[in-house]
């Protein structure tokens, strides 16, 4: 290609153009990358929720307790339905299990005939104290923090039953 611009000047202008384009790219990148890649600061859930009157619990018979909790999801702060499997343990203590199977999050249920929690998705099985009895579940059932004030049951955040191994 024949052209009248001397090679040295051509090279200089080419480098200057690349520099300007790179500077604009950097300016956009420094805004867009954090925007897309850094999760927002806001916490997902609030602390303690009043889950209602302590249900009448027969020992060792889990109850699927539905309650309302405040949830903050991005810009949306709303009251949503939540649930917990509440159990009066043989020792007398109350435990409240998160309703999500620790395998892949399906909702599991209590089998009265076999006295165990069974997950319909991949066949994980849990004992009444949350232990894994079988199936692919990697850890025992997760529990809500539990607090009892008078006759009211308060549930806190769900705590993973073991530190998650990544």
């Amino acid at each position: 290609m024949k052209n009248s611009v001397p090679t040295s000047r051509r090279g200089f202008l080419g480098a200057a153009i690349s520099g300007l384009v790179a500077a604009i790219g950097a300016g956009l990148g420094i805004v867009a990358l954090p925007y897309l890649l850094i999760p927002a600061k806001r916490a997902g859930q609030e602390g303690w929720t009043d889950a209602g009157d302590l249900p009448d619990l027969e020992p060792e018979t889990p109850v699927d307790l539905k309650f309302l909790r405040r949830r903050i999801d991005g810009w949306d702060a709303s009251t949503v339905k939540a649930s917990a499997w509440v159990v009066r343990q043989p020792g007398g203590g109350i435990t409240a299990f998160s309703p999500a199977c620790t395998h892949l999050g399906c909702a599991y249920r209590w089998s009265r005939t076999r006295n165990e929690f069974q997950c319909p998705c991949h066949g994980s099985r849990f004992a009444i104290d949350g232990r894994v009895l079988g199936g692919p579940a990697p850890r025992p059932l997760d529990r809500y923090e539990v607090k009892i004030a008078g006759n009211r049951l308060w549930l806190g955040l769900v705590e993973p039953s073991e530190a998650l191994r990544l």
Partner: protein
Amino acid sequence: MMPALLRWLEERTGIPGAVRRVFGEDIPASAGWAQVIGSVVLFLFFIQVFTGVLLAFNYAPTPGEAYHSLNYIMREVAGGRMVRGLHHWGSSLMIGAVVLHMIQVFLYGAYRKPREATWMVGVTLFLITLGFGLTGYLLPWDNRAYWGTVVTTQIAGQAPLAGGYIRKLLGATDGVGAVTFAHFYALHTTLLPILAFLLVALHVSLVKRHGVAPAPFDDRPKRKFFPEQVFKDACAIFAVFAVLFFLAAVAGAPLERLADPTDTTHIPRPEWYFLFLFETLKFLRGTAERIGSVLLPTLAVGLLFAVPFLDRSRLRPVSERMFAIATVALSLIAGVSLTVAAVVTAPRSAGPDPEALSSATSAIVSGARIFAANGCGNCHSINGVGGTLAPSLNGVSQRHSREWIAQHLRDPKSQTPGTIMPPFNFSAQDRDLLIAYLSSLPSR
């Protein structure tokens, strides 16, 4: 390595060759700084697409939620304030650049045969740009957006014959609401972008087909696009980007409080580029008003389209195109003076009720200013006005001690675990003024 890769790409896609052809294109010797504006417009268009897509990642396109999600973008998403700032100021710069581009083409007579179609596609793109501005204005769903659009749709309703129909079509017969919002959102994010992409492609391909218009009587040998003109383009684009970045970072974008159709204190103002039209409407009554708001703009647009066919003058150097120069100068004088008049005569933005002010101490007034300046009302409400995300602040001083409030401002989570309120590092003086203001509020 590189040459082999380029050859591989060339044989399979032809992309390297296409890039080389773009940079190797012939341009007239007279091309220079005046011809960079078109490139700047194209750059700003891509900035708007880029930042618009980013906003869409965290934006909820329904009235009410739109406001809360934008608030979330600006306060809680990393870089969100900048993304919105770039999109907001990008639109203003885009309008400015488009107008400058049109003035340059008009002064140079670059719309002459065979470039009439290029000009007409350009005028259509100008209208689309205004359409983007008009529809995007509603999307933050704050008071400014709501009332601005109420006025806009009322003006559209003045169109002869079709006015009532247009307002029904926009869902804007009784204020503006969910239907208007959805229509504007669809226009802003789907229809207008598709049209803009197609017409920009057509416009650019027409420019390539006919070549950049040379100055009259320029018979010097042609030059290549690369490197000198590309360098000028890059410099101009970089300068505009620097200004845009500065505006977004320093001035930011406004977000007033949530749209309130019952608010009688709000003073609607359009964006600066519609102010001249806004000011014109102050002087017109009755039929004349319809002429000013609908017929004159329609006529002006018609004239713009017809420019290549109306200009029958012979080819002259730019400096001798007196009619074109006079037209631009007169339009600019009229536009600028109307805009300045609109700015100068604007009432002060609605502040607190003057009667209430006279009985308030200056500490309380200063506290109210701090309250407004920090956007507290975006989440909290006072006397039933303000956000709904956080508790009302009426009676907060009965509910909590001064120390509690001070500590809550400094570190909200320490006093209210799980709260979404961000910490505010006020100076001790500002903090005391703010608490004085909050303590002055009626408890209910």
